[in-house]
């Protein structure tokens, strides 16, 4: 009797041990390490600076409004002929490729040219790439402060013909659903890499390491 009992408890212990190992392994596997990301992962998690802007429908917006969703921020302007449409088109492709996960992603396009980019223009421009994109504008000061917080540099560069170009950073910023800044993408980041990383972030997974 006691032999059977001890055998039983030994078997039970073994089963428990295996279960613990499997569970631990699963947690390790399911935990994202910064090295799992393909975009540049920020070494330290810190809450992303908020902004006070207005969306293209005239509604005041701050980053906190998008809590619960992974936010992708790109600073752009309509008179940008090359980098902006290329990057926005890429982000639109990313949204398509994300499939259902795209419901948990919000792309925000912040104009660096509030003077020329009226809310109406911004709306028709931004939504042409993807109807889910939201364009944000504001006063020159608001834009300035948002850009500074994201370390976005932009300088107005006049050319002839009363026209001015804007030198600008072309990074794309990814903020997780908890409002923590996480990743920075660039013009050379591929659609695949964006999709990969956004899937990781929208999976509701814990970060380790």
């Amino acid at each position: 009797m006691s032999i059977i009992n001890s055998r039983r408890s030994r078997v039970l212990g073994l089963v428990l041990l295996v279960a613990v190992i499997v569970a631990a392994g699963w947690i390790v596997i399911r935990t994202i390490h910064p090295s799992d990301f393909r975009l540049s992962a920020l070494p330290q998690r810190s809450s992303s600076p908020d902004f006070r802007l207005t969306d293209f429908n005239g509604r005041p917006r701050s980053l906190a409004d998008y809590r619960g969703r992974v936010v992708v921020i790109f600073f752009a302007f309509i008179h940008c002929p090359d980098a902006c449409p290329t990057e926005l088109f890429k982000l639109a492709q990313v949204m398509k490729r994300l499939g259902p996960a795209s419901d948990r992603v919000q792309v925000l396009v912040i104009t660096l040219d509030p003077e020329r980019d009226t809310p109406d223009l911004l709306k028709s421009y931004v939504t042409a790439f993807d109807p889910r994109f939201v364009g944000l504008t504001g006063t020159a000061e608001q834009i300035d402060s948002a850009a500074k917080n994201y370390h976005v540099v932009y300088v107005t560069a006049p050319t002839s013909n009363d026209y001015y170009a804007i030198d600008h950073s072309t990074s794309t910023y990814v903020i997780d659903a908890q409002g923590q800044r996480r990743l920075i993408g660039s013009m050379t980041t591929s659609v695949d890499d964006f999709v990969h990383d956004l899937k990781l972030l929208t999976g509701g997974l814990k970060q380790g390491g």
Partner: protein
Amino acid sequence: MMVTRMIVAARVMRGTRRIGIAQDDGELAVDRRQHEAGGNERAQAEHRQHERRSPMACAAVSQAALCSSHHNNHGAPTPLPDQVGCLGTNGMNPLNVARSQVAFYSGALGVLKVLEGELAVYTRIHRLTFLLALAWAIPALAADQRMGSLTITQPWSRATAPGAAVGVAYFEIVNSGGQDTLLRVEAPIAQHVEMHSMTSIGGLMQMRQVLSVDVPAKGRVRFEPGGLHVMLIDLTQPLKEGQRFPLTLVFQHAGSMRVEAIVQGLGATAAPSQGEAAHEHHQ
């Protein structure tokens, strides 16, 4: 260049035809019967339909795309019985003639209804292929411009999103002669046209107007995304994919050269290479 494109167009045609046939064995049988019966009248009929829609375009592609597709479609290099017919020299309404011929052969085989059904499917496939091949091959006719020692290859532009008043244009200048300078670019589609350079320094994209661009002897200059580009400021109309518009390049020595830029899609990052274009049409 143009000839190469035609050949590719022909290949595209053949490829898609094969797919069309593979979809249905019965269709293959019909196709053989039709061919053996001595006619590629369906091809003629379709061809004439297309010819009526766009005579010039059809004439340009007919020999390469249509005829050669027929030539190679049936495995063995069957001599084409009526290549002249391919050009549509029949005095009667070619469509009716072709239709009556089809009806005759079909009737003789006693499967009129079946044939008609399959023919309709086949015609749809073939027509689509033909239009796709045309749509791609025709713009190519205007792609490269050569004047003296200068060749402008693949001038292209990108469609603009609604609200955007600026566009871009890109091309490559290949110079087989002595040094020259591109002084300016003119485009009636924009109020102002400027040449800009773009450099990315630590992720900061800098755009600067350049007043002239040196074209070295035996060298080439490329206007491309992320680099030199022509800025079309205050467009008179939005740029739509597939549209073409004239650009005039003014050189110090060679003088003015007029080219036609082809507008690519909203997210295009390069003029389509031949391989890509063929690939697209296969899908």
